[in-house]
């Protein structure tokens, strides 16, 4: 008996080694040994015919062998299945270096990007965002801003006039007037928007974008103007910015100034962006002129205010390194695509 079992095990091990890796052969071997007519099955069936004293040992030997065979078969089947899956998986591997398929992604105009960043900064600082009409009347665009008819500073505005006497606003300042005439101070507002001037060359477009900030309260001074500009520009350019005020003339502010910010690229050392000066000229600023307050029915003895303005187009050009102004209005998809949403 023991000899026969040893022979069966020997044959089984030999056959298993042969079948290794092929799930079908492993299954066939299982049937040969453990199937209904399998060699081991036959031996187990024959156990009953043995004398009782032999039966106990023989049963133990056969069962031990059966257990070993089953374990080895299971292991071999598992190995074979894994080998087969591995062979399967070796087929159809992808070339992952091929260009991907992007979802269709559009873009926002660089001026929109810059305007939104600025609006967000001001909103976080407690300002409201206001808008007003692009077609304006003389009162809001000029007279209320201390630019009476025949004022020589109107020359600088290069105004587009419409048949019937209205005009295209030359700045966003009329929105300040509209806000101050409808809302009592304190006021903290910005007004971004399109403005129009009759000027068209390499550095001017007849339509561009401005943003003005206006703060009116009981104790507002140029110091607040300076600090606010530094806070806004530091957040916008994500680097510490200092501002420089130079006296400048805008009829609706007094004192009035032009302001520069330290170059966000070089920090003031001089580079291509700031034309080696260390400073970027960004716009005009000043304290709201008493005549403007009076035109809006605001008491200039009680309230003071500052305003400053900037050209969003220029800011966007600085931020994105755009050198040719015309690109902003041309609509060339190769340009626009560079500012994904």
């Amino acid at each position, binding site marked *: 008996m023991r000899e026969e079992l040893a022979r069966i095990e020997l044959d089984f091990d030999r056959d298993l080694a042969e079948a290794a890796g092929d799930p079908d052969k492993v299954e066939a071997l299982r049937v040969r040994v453990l199937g209904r007519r399998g060699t081991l099955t036959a031996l187990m069936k024959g156990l009953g015919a043995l004398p009782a004293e032999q039966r106990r040992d023989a049963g133990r030997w056969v069962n031990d062998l059966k257990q070993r065979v089953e374990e080895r078969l299971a292991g071999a089947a598992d190995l074979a299945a894994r080998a087969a899956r591995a062979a399967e998986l070796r087929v159809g591997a992808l070339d992952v270096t*091929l260009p991907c398929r*992007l979802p*269709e*992604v*559009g*873009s*926002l*105009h660089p*001026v929109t990007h810059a305007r939104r960043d600025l609006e967000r900064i001001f*909103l976080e600082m*407690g300002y*409201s965002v*206001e*808008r*007003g*009409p*692009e*077609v304006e009347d003389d009162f809001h665009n000029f007279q209320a801003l201390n630019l009476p008819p*025949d004022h*020589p500073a109107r*020359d*600088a505005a290069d105004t*587009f*006039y*419409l*048949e019937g006497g*209205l005009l295209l606003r030359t700045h966003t300042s009329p929105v300040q007037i509209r806000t101050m005439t409808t*809302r009592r101070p*304190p006021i*903290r*507002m910005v007004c971004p928007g*399109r403005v*129009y001037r009759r*000027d*068209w060359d390499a550095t001017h477009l*007849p339509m561009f974008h401005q943003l003005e900030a206006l*703060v009116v309260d009981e*104790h*507002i*001074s*140029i*110091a*607040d103007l300076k600090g*606010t500009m*530094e*806070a806004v520009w530091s957040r916008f350019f994500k680097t510490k910015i200092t501002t*420089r005020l*130079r*006296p400048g*003339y805008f*009829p609706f502010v*007094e*004192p009035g100034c032009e302001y520069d910010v330290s170059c966000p690229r070089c920090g003031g050392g001089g580079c291509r962006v700031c034309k080696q000066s260390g400073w970027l000229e960004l716009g005009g600023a000043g*304290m709201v002129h008493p005549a403007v307050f009076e035109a809006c029915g605001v008491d200039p003895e009680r309230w003071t205010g500052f305003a400053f303005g900037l050209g969003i187009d220029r800011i966007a050009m600085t931020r994105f390194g755009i050198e040719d102004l015309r690109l902003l*209005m*041309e*609509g*060339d*998809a190769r340009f626009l695509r560079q500012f994904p*949403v």
Partner: protein
Amino acid sequence: MLVSVAWVREMCPCDATAGRIAEILTSRGLTVDTVIGDPSSAEAVLDVDVPANRPDCLGHRGIARELSAATGVPLARVPSPPAPAGGPVDQAVSVEIAAPEHCARYTARLVRGVRVGPSPPWVVRRLEDCGLRALDNVVDASNLVMLALGHPVHFFDLARLRGPRVIVRAARPGELLTTLDAVERKLDAADLVIADADRPLALAGVMGGADSEISIDTRDVLIEAAWFDPVTVRRTARRHGLHTDASHRFERGCDPEAPLAAQDLACRLLADLAGGVPAPGVLDVHPSPRRPRSLSLRMSRIARLLGYDPGASATESALSALALAPRRIDHDRFEVDVPSYRVDLETEADLVEEVARHIGYDQVPARVPAPTGSPASGTTHPLEERCRDLLAHAGFLEMFSYAMVAVGEDDPFVPPGTRAPLKLTNPIAEPLTCLRRSILPGPIAAAGLNARRAARSQRLFEVGRVFLPGENPGEFPEEVLRAGAVWGGPVRTPHWSEPHPPAVGFADLAGLVERALRGMVPGVDWTVRPHALPGLHPGRTAAWFGEHGDPLAWGGCLHPDLRARLEFADDLWLCEIDLDALARSTGASTAQTALPRVPAVVRDLSVVLAPDASFADLTATLERVPAPAPATFDAVDRYEGPPLGAGEAALTVRVCLQPLERSLEEDAIEGYRRGLIDALSSSGLGRLRA
């Protein structure tokens, strides 16, 4: 204004270089745009941007005053006029101001015996430095006076004056005057002229006349130095399209006290350059002398506007340096006298600026004002930014175009009968003549540009305002916020996995529109109907009408004629969304609905639609059939062509019944299906497909 550094340093004998002077002037609000020449020398020329409120700096003397205030170097004495001789001026000529509201002062002097000839080289050089061409010694003398003092003077040839007298009067309507530029001008009653006994000689403050011009034969020169009303000069200059060195200065406001100094300098130069001898006396008609102006300035106001207190002594020395003669009134208050040349100083705030300008803005500290309690809500458009995001996320590129279009450019995209666009009276270019009433011309033009630059796919959008004119001229137009998109070429970007995607079609465009509408106003409802616009293919255009019956959006395929004219190779699909109309829509609840507990029943109906019958007609008919559960209809397949008749379309309609609580009995489903078929056959919209 071009400023000769050498000349300024004669007037204010400091030792600053041109570069240093440029820095000083810029820091005081007289921005030097460029230094022409060597900045380390005293010979350069500065291009100074003189602001409109500082006419006193439109002459070298004014620039020198600023330099003197900054450096503390006193101004040099002005050269004295030569000794007069001969008969006095008042025996040779008379002066009358007949329009005192336009001319507050008129002075005249007579210089006899000039010899007209070329100027010496230093004069030629000085004029050239300042951007003027030398002509002859007499004309050059008048230009030198203007450049030195910022006050224009005019020279008449006395021999040409009839009377001889000078009358400052309003022009007679229709009167003719040939100005120095050889243009014959028809005058208006609002023009101010200098006339003699018979005729106008000059447009006051703007330009002289050819008749009384200095010529080679001129011997006796009558010098005019006057003060003309700025508005009068400005209007006359504009009316005649003349902008001269003289009008530029007068319209900004000249110094009413300058005419006598100008006379003295003119006499000196005519003597030195042309050998003239001044006649004794000055005619000075001065009907309304300037009243001296005093202003008061509170230290507390300075501190309030600047945010810091510069101190009384710094304030006082700033005011003194600026020749404002400050007097301390009390602990808070100064009183100052405004010099006649500082026409810009009118209020206390102006004085605060003078102090800040002199001390320097760099002294001002920086701080951030505390926020107020609750920020105001603002007046931005509720949908504007959302619309940009939706269209950009749908794969479209945001572009900007001008709000002005060429005449007729937007006609194809507005309904016929729309009011004519608002026109600019002074357009800068023919393509930018009137205000757009549709946003589409800009994106279409950009698509054209991209197509010419070999782009196969067009996906652009713009969000901006259009301008719908009111009924009456001069009325504010309605400014409506619109979004416009153009879409052409393959519907998806070609990729190695799909090299030839299908071309964009109406369903794609409609999908874009509907996604944008619902994305902006969740649950908003509409009706789609064909909607003709002249610029769109008449069979491929639709509008989405909102709850109030006004269109929320419209769009379609660019009309083949227009497409040919604009040279597009492929179809271009366009849509325009009215964000104002959409903002007036209420939308619907976005609350979640309960999920059904039983499965839906789906049945397909194959229908042949009759010509001109639409899917909407069909679903409207089917919706009227009583359903055993809530029913929805979808189109899942469509076919046109043989063996169907012309205009017919085979359509597979998928009917979905979604019971809420209990499953449907087969009988009920079959009964409903028969009901649908009956409704179809009695509607005349089509038949069931065999």
